[in-house]
């Protein structure tokens, strides 16, 4: 795996262990290098450490061994400026309206009120939430709530966006449409994106590169370059290469998934 000249994020020899009892070797050793503006997906069987990888990458968890560097600087146990995170579970704040939820991301910033309003309104429009701006999360579906969380990350103008199975609870059709939204977001923000997903087709269709993680302890066992053009959307599924990419991902993943299920191969 060639390291690009000015990588945005670098993980070197990252290992994460838990003391237990019993002690668990959850992840690693992991080596990963992301180029600026790259769309990178991570796929792997459940329990392989994908979420841990994301936690370590953004500073929510400290690696037991190895280093993580973001924009050249090493991480020290806290989340640096410039990283946005969208979690798997619903992290919308029940007591705030959609608009207030999205503005929440900017509460700490010292931006003037006008700029904040501008960014918030732009995010609302971009994520298609205009009709629901004054509603409360309890009144929205799961998919809409996830859009609110993405919008909340958007207003921060992060340079690196991490998403942990953001569309896990949605139906297939919504997932495909949300995938298009994500690509739109990517092109508009020019951010580097790391997406964790268990859906192979999603990874194959959205990413520049896909990393396949083994069963626990998670390590990269394959790295697939898709070679898609930057201007792409869900209709790429009709491209003949799509099938080949998905097939390759599955052949790498199948054995690992069986291992996780306890089936001896």
């Amino acid at each position: 795996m060639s390291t690009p000249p000015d990588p945005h994020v670098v993980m070197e020899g990252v290992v994460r262990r838990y003391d237990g009892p019993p002690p668990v070797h959850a992840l690693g050793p992991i080596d990963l290098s992301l180029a600026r503006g790259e769309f990178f997906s991570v796929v792997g069987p459940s329990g392989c450490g994908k979420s841990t990888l994301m936690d370590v990458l953004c500073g929510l968890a400290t690696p037991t061994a190895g280093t993580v560097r973001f924009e050249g600087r090493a991480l020290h146990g806290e989340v640096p400026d410039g990283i946005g995170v969208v979690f798997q579970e619903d992290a919308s704040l029940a007591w705030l309206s959609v608009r207030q939820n999205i503005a929440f991301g900017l509460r700490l910033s010292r931006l003037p009120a006008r700029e904040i309003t501008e960014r918030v309104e732009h995010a609302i429009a971009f994520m298609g939430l205009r009709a629901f701006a004054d509603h409360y999360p309890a009144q929205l579906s799961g998919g809409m709530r996830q859009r609110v969380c993405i919008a909340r990350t958007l207003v921060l103008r992060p340079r690196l966006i991490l998403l942990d199975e953001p569309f896990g609870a949605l139906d297939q059709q919504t997932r495909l449409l949300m995938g298009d939204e994500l690509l739109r977001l990517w092109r508009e923000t020019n951010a580097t994106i790391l997406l964790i997903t268990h859906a192979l087709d999603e990874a194959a269709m959205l990413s520049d590169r896909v990393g396949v993680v083994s069963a626990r302890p998670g390590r990269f066992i394959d790295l697939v370059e898709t070679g898609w053009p930057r201007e792409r959307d869900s209709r790429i599924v009709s491209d003949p290469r799509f099938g080949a990419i998905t097939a390759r991902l599955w052949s790498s993943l199948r054995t690992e998934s069986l291992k996780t299920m306890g089936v001896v191969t």
Partner: protein
Amino acid sequence: MTRARGVLLVRIAGLSAAVLLLELLCRTGVVNPMTILPPSDMLTAMLDLLSAGDLNDGMMQTFSTIAIAFVLAIALGTAAGAVIHRIPRLRAVLDPLLASYYSIPTFIFYPLLVALFALGKTPLVILGMMSATPAVIISTLAGLDSVPQVLLKLARAQRLGRLRTLGWIILPQCLPRLFSGFKLALSYALIGVIAGEFLLSGTGLGYAISFAYQSFDNRAMYGAMLFVLLAAITANGLLFVWEDRLARRRMKQ
């Protein structure tokens, strides 16, 4: 919305019918008017007492005692709940105690409290606090439990720092449960204080009722009783409505 309105109407009608029935039974002598006053007489008795200012001292005493017990219970209960939540081992050992606390009639400690602190406000406040604080502790624990891990991760991802995480995320998330604990605290403090005054005290509304009873002054007794009941219903009712308003946004419409 018509069903809700219908329910409300039937409730009002039912209660009014019960009051009217009692009025009728008293007036016709089926129920001995020496035992139970007709409701209209109870009302006039209460209004007489109020206008004569006979209840003013009692009101001041009782309401201030309840208020003090309530505020102290909330302060102590929330603080204790927060501390207990942070120390899992402490929580594990206190859980069974908290779970069975309300099976003990705390009232039985009142005579001991009077012996300890002499008749006055102190034993009443302590009795009120003994009744109210555990409810606040329990609801604080439940509230803190109800903060999903993902929101704490969100706080860290947004780099909020501990104080802001507490104020911007933990507190708003806990609020519904905290508030229901406060509601219980008020109702327990009120019951505890008035029961204490009733049993063993020289001042307050509870004492006014028991004194009137022992002086065979039924009118004064029923008047004071009605006032206390209405005050209790109003205080609790206000909190109930307030809680409902707060909860409305968070519930599915």
